[in-house]
């Protein structure tokens, strides 16, 4: 699983590279665009996702000490927190839709924005949707895996001797959390002091 996660580092890494290059080329536009994203929801989402990592780590622990009821409870909590995250993401995307900040869909950064501003902030939003979209896709896959895990744990399949699926899916879930830990400051916290 760690080797698979290495390939995921490559996968997301490419987008982080694109982000790095574009942000260094258009720092002011990126700052403006970032400031237009709602910070409270993003912060809440970060807290929710890190909490889901906690519950996931607790479920791995529960599987290793043979506490089957707690295992299922923590897995369900992880799934709920992950779904809350996706729900808040949906709300954020809707906000962007209403503000005409979705590239290609009647994009206009703000009334009276110049062509250059629109072009450069559109770069930010392309990256925003691509990166958070890819991340959300990984969350959805993770949610599916969690549903399978919950079903299996309800059948009592996991014991201290055999809890490998819980471990592996835990690693995957934590990785997706790490991606968000980097996405959050890079997308939401540019130039917030202005």
């Amino acid at each position, binding site marked *: 699983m*760690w080797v698979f996660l290495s390939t995921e*580092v490559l996968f997301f*890494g490419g987008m*982080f590279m694109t982000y790095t290059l574009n942000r*260094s080329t258009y720092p002011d536009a990126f700052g403006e665009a970032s400031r237009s994203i709602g910070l409270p929801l993003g912060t809440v989402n970060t807290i929710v996702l890190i909490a889901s990592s906690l519950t996931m*780590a607790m479920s791995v622990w529960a599987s290793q000490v043979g506490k089957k009821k707690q295992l299922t409870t923590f897995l369900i909590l992880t799934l709920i927190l992950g779904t809350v995250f996706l729900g808040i993401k949906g709300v954020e995307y809707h906000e962007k839709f209403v503000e005409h900040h979705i590239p290609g869909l009647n994009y206009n950064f703000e009334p009276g924005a110049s062509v250059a501003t629109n072009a450069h902030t559109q770069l930010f939003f392309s990256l925003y949707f691509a990166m958070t979209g890819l991340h959300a896709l990984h969350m959805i896959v993770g949610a599916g895996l969690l549903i399978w895990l919950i079903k299996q744990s309800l059948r009592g399949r996991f014991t201290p001797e055999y809890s490998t699926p819980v471990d592996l899916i835990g*690693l995957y879930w934590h990785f997706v959390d790490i991606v968000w*830990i980097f996405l959050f*400051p890079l997308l939401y916290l540019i130039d917030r002091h202005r």
Partner: protein
Amino acid sequence: MYITIFFVLMVCTLLTVYAATLDLNEYFSGLNIIVALAIATLKASLVVLFFMHGKYSPKRTQLVIICSVFWLAIMLFMTMSDYVTRLWS
């Protein structure tokens, strides 16, 4: 215990949001992004070491982790140094 790590992660999250609202670029150009990335790296390290049991994993697993990070570092460093040293007209 995981809960302690969780609280440290929470503190780091709130810290990074707070630091973003301060103009640190006054003191050192680019300090805001350095602080933000440093805090994010700390958070990610805590997750890898403790939630993902990286600290308690065999050496070969730790090697795989370090290699991924190293690869990312090379890509970012080499690509950026390529772009930054081009002479655009």
